[in-house]
Each structure stands twice: as structure tokens, then as C-alpha cells.
């Protein structure tokens, strides 16, 4: 503060001198005599009233610039300090006869040395245990060697890749490259437990003389995947009445006549009731208008999505129960929207998983008999043999992706040195097995959207 005040006083003095020169007829002594006081006064006024506001604004803008260039600055300032250090040492160099470590030819500036890059990007699968399994997330982790470890969104955009390997009705396999495990895992977790689907939640059993107990039957019904797009439905909360927007009703009425052989009840026998429940609710007042267990305002099959694509179980031949002669099941099943974290029946996937891309590296040439041995060792045929002419053979890594990490090829001391089993930390082979309600590619986009929504909710909450 004092400093700025002084600056302003000096500036004011200069201004007055210039003013005096331009007006020579002004009495110089009076100007000179007055100006310090006047200048000081002006400066004080300026400093107290005008400057603070201006100062705050200018500081703000500087902060923003600093924020924007923080990472660059950090790395450059780091390398700067490193350089100054190395200069110091260089001055001493003649004495010690060795210069700074930073001057050695194999220290790359601004990027990690190869062994650190390898440790950062690969998991090393050793015979006893994997090493370097952690992800270095902290932006300043390598600050001391002048390397910025933060991920800029532009860099991410440039490097992120998705490659679809397999895509059919139920199963999808794709490679997700250039993303951290934290986020890949978030997608996987969301797929399993937070993408909503429709599943049978309530079963009204009118008659069940089969061997399967009511509760077991209800549980079996719950686990049947139902092919209805959950995005077209709402959640049914505790106080809601079931209506056409939140409930799907199925009816099951099967009977095994006397004298007939035993029969199975299949999921295809569940019959969709687009108009809602057909069971009349018993009411205390006998004069009350009879109502059912749902209150549909319109038929669900009037919805264009369902009119030519009726709601039904995704698979026809799921056995629900077996009936002996004379046994009967009559029930109504109400499906509602839910999430896998409440009950696995709402999970839209059989499972979703990923594995990191295996990388098999031969650290030295494996030739002749050893090459044959290596090829024989691997149960999934990762290695091939290359003919090098004049009868010489050399092992090559042909199908690293198939590696199951059984570690057979690194058994024995000599092999452990020759073969490195690595996993690429930012390359995920992602597999999604849909249960059939939604195709797997839609499930993944839904999962990503859910994570986006979570972020947006936090932003809204903090704003």
C-alpha cells in the first residue's frame, strides 16, 4: 500500500513539472512550492477512493489469467528454477568435474524419462505380484522434474478414442483408449447399478396351487427382463397411484388339466394388459364403485412406441414354474421402473466389465529351442515363431490381446527376465452384456449421460 502511494505521489510530481514547462508564464516557484502538497493530497484521494476498486478488478483479471495458464506456468517455472539450479552447479562444475544431473544427455526436458513413463502407463505383472498398479493422478506429481501431469481437456479430446470390436443385439465389445480408470470404472458402475429398467415389483396372486411357493414365484417373475423402453416411463413413488405412465401390468393364468402330463410355465405366457389391472379391489364400503389395483387413464397400446411393438418379456422360454395335473396359477404382475442398486432385477446388464489391454514384450531375442518352448508354454497361443532364414527361429508376440495373464510364460527365473507382461493403464477393453431391454450401445450412452447429470447436479447445487 505504501509503495503504491509513493508511486502515485512521484507521478503527480512529474505531471506538475510537465504542466509547469508547458505554461512558462506560471510562477515556477509557486508551482514547485505547491506541487508536493497538492500532489500528495491528490494521491491520497485517488488512493482511497478510486484505486481500491480498480485494483481489485485488475487483480481479478490477473488471477483468471493465472488460472488459465497455471499448468504451463507451473511447468515453466519449475523448469526455470531447475535451470537456475543447474547454472549454479555448472559454475562449480570445473571443480567437481561433473555437471548437473539435468545436463546429462539422457534426461529429457519437459517429458518423463522412459522408465517413469513406463511405470506411469503400464502395470507390470510379475510372477509373484503386479507392481506399479496405481494411477498417478496428482497434477503436480512430477513437478520436481518439470513435467506437468495434469490432463488438459483439449489434450483429452485429441487422444481419446473408441474402437468398436463387436456389436450385436445383446453384447458389445469396444476399446476405450486414453481415459483414466476412475472414469471408466464410473461408467461400469453406472451401467450395473444406475441405468433404470422396468421389472416386476408387485405380484398379486389370486391362486397358486403349484409346488412353487408364492414368494419364490414372485422372485422368479421379478427377474424376467421386460422389453419396454424405461425412458418412456416414470418412477412410481410411495404415494403415487399406479397409472399408465409408471406401471406395466401382466397377467398369468395357467392351468394343468387333470389327466394331462406335467407342464412347464414359460415367460411367454405372461400376457400384457395395456389397460391395467383386471383385479377388482376389495373396499370396506360395499356400495363403493369397484376399482382395480391400477388407475389407467388410457390404454398403453395407444402409445405409438408400443402399439406395433407390444410389451413382453425379452425371452420367451424362461421357465417360471412346473404344474402337475390339477394345479393352477392365476396372478397379476406389476412392473415398475427402478435401478440396479435397489435390486439386481433392475440392472440392465448381465454384467459390464473391462480389462486393461495386455502387452507382452520380449526383453531379449528368444531363438531356437527356447522359441519353440515359449510358443508351447502359452495356452492361448500368444507367441508365434518367425523364420529368420537359414533355419534360425525367433519368437514373436503375435496376439497379445488374447493373453489371459496366466503367467505361465514367466515361470522360471530365466523366463521372468526375458518376458515382460504389462497392461496398458489407459486402454480398456470394455464389454457390455445387455439383458435385452435396451441395446448395449444405448445403455452405454445412457450411462455416460447419467454421469453428466450427476456433475450438473453438483454444479447446480454449488452455484
Amino acid at each position, binding site marked *: 500500500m505504501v509503495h503504491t502511494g509513493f508511486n502515485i505521489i512521484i507521478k503527480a510530481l512529474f505531471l506538475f513539472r510537465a504542466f509547469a514547462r508547458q505554461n512558462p508564464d506560471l510562477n515556477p516557484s509557486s508551482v514547485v512550492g505547491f506541487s508536493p502538497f497538492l500532489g500528495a493530497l491528490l494521491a491520497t484521494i485517488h488512493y482511497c477512493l478510486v484505486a481500491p476498486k480498480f485494483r481489485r478488478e485488475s487483480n481479478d483479471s490477473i*488471477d483468471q489469467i493465472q*488460472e488459465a495458464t*497455471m*499448468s504451463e506456468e*507451473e511447468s515453466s517455472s519449475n523448469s526455470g528454477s531447475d535451470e537456475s539450479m543447474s547454472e549454479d552447479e555448472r559454475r562449480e562444475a570445473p571443480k567437481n568435474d561433473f555437471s548437473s544431473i539435468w545436463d546429462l544427455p539422457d534426461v529429457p526436458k519437459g517429458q518423463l524419462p522412459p522408465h517413469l513413463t513406463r511405470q506411469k502407463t503400464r502395470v507390470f505383472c510379475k510372477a509373484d505380484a503386479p507392481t506399479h498398479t496405481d494411477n498417478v*493422478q*496428482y*497434477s*503436480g506429481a512430477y513437478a520436481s522434474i518439470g513435467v*506437468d*501431469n*495434469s*490432463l488438459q*481437456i483439449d489434450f*483429452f*479430446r485429441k487422444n*481419446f*478414442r*473408441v*474402437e*468398436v470390436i463387436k*456389436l450385436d443385439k445383446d453384447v458389445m465389445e*469396444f476399446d*476405450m483408449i486414453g*481415459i*483414466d480408470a*476412475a*472414469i471408466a*470404472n*464410473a*461408467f461400469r*458402475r*453406472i451401467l450395473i447399478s*444406475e441405468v433404470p429398467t422396468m421389472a416386476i415389483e408387485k405380484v398379486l396372486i389370486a391362486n397358486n396351487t403349484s409346488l412353487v411357493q408364492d414368494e419364490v414365484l414372485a422372485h422368479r417373475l421379478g427377474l424376467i427382463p421386460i422389453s419396454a423402453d424405461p425412458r418412456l416411463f416414470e418412477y412410481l413413488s410411495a404415494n403415487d397411484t399406479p397409472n399408465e405412465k409408471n406401471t406395466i401390468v401382466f397377467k398369468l393364468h395357467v392351468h394343468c388339466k387333470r389327466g394331462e402330463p406335467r407342464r412347464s410355465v414359460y415367460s411367454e405366457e405372461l400376457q400384457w394388459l395395456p389397460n391395467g389391472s383386471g383385479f377388482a379391489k376389495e373396499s370396506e364400503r360395499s356400495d363403493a364403485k369397484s376399482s382395480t389395483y391400477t388407475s389407467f387413464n388410457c390404454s398403453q397400446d395407444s402409445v405409438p412406441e408400443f402399439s406395433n411393438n407390444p410389451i413382453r418379456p425379452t425371452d420367451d422360454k424362461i421357465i417360471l414354474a412346473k404344474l402337475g395335473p390339477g394345479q393352477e396359477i392365476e396372478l397379476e404382475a406389476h412392473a415398475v421402473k427402478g435401478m440396479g442398486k435397489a435390486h439386481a432385477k433392475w440392472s440392465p446388464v448381465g454384467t459390464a466389465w473391462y480389462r486393461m489391454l495386455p502387452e507382452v514384450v520380449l526383453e531379449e531375442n528368444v531363438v531356437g529351442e527356447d522359441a519353440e518352448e515359449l510358443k508351447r508354454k502359452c495356452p492361448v497361443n500368444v507367441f508365434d515363431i518367425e523364420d529368420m532364414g537359414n533355419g534360425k527361429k525367433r519368437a514373436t508376440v503375435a496376439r497379445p490381446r488374447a493373453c489371459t495373464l496366466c503367467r505361465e510364460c514367466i515361470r522360471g527365473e530365466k523366463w521372468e527376465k526375458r518376458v515382460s507382461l504389462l497392461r496398458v493403464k489407459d486402454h480398456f477393453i470394455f464389454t457390455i452384456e445387455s439383458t435385452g431391454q435396451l441395446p448395449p*450401445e444405448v445403455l*452405454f*450412452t445412457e450411462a*455416460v*449421460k447419467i*454421469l*453428466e447429470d*450427476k*456433475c*450438473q447436479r*453438483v*454444479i447446480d*447445487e*454449488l*452455484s
Partner: protein
Amino acid sequence: MEHGSIKDPSRATFSFVDEDHTLANSLRYSLNQDARVSYCGYSIPHPSDARVNIRVQTTGDPAREVLKDACQNLKLMCQHVRTSFDESVADFRNNEPSKMETSDSEN
């Protein structure tokens, strides 16, 4: 969601209800990538409580703003993942028929 900070805005704990590792771990990653963050971590105080606490300490900026930026960054990443995923799926679909044709003609 609560905001548990005392006088100094550069350090705060945020408590999110109905969230778990899914969001917390991704946010931790996103926060760690921000050079303004000096410390961040999360904990789930009790497994049967649907709640997670995220601790953010910065080099001076308000923790709340830094957390907001981390969310924004994570969201942008998600959006990019979604667009590149959709593109790859579309590409795959476009190439698939041709692949099948070539294999048919070979046979």
C-alpha cells in the same frame, strides 16, 4: 449436499447424499488434475449411509469454485466420450455390411 467450511474458503468438505464411489472417485480424479488443488480425497463415513464426503484444499482459490470447475471438466469429458462413442458405433455399423459382403464373396 452440504458445505462444511469454516472462515477459510480455500478448504472445505462437501457432503453429497445419495452418491457413492461412482461420482466421488471420478471427481477426485478430476480435482487432482487441477493444478490449484493441493489436497483432495473422499470418504464414505458409513457403508449403510448413502453419503460421501469430498475434501478439497486449494492453493488459495475458493474450494467451492474449484470443485465446480472439476465437475464442469468431468462433464465435458463425458460429453466427448459420448460423441466419440456414437461416432465409432456409427462407423462400425457402416463398415459392418461391407465386411460381411467381402467375406461372403470370398466364400
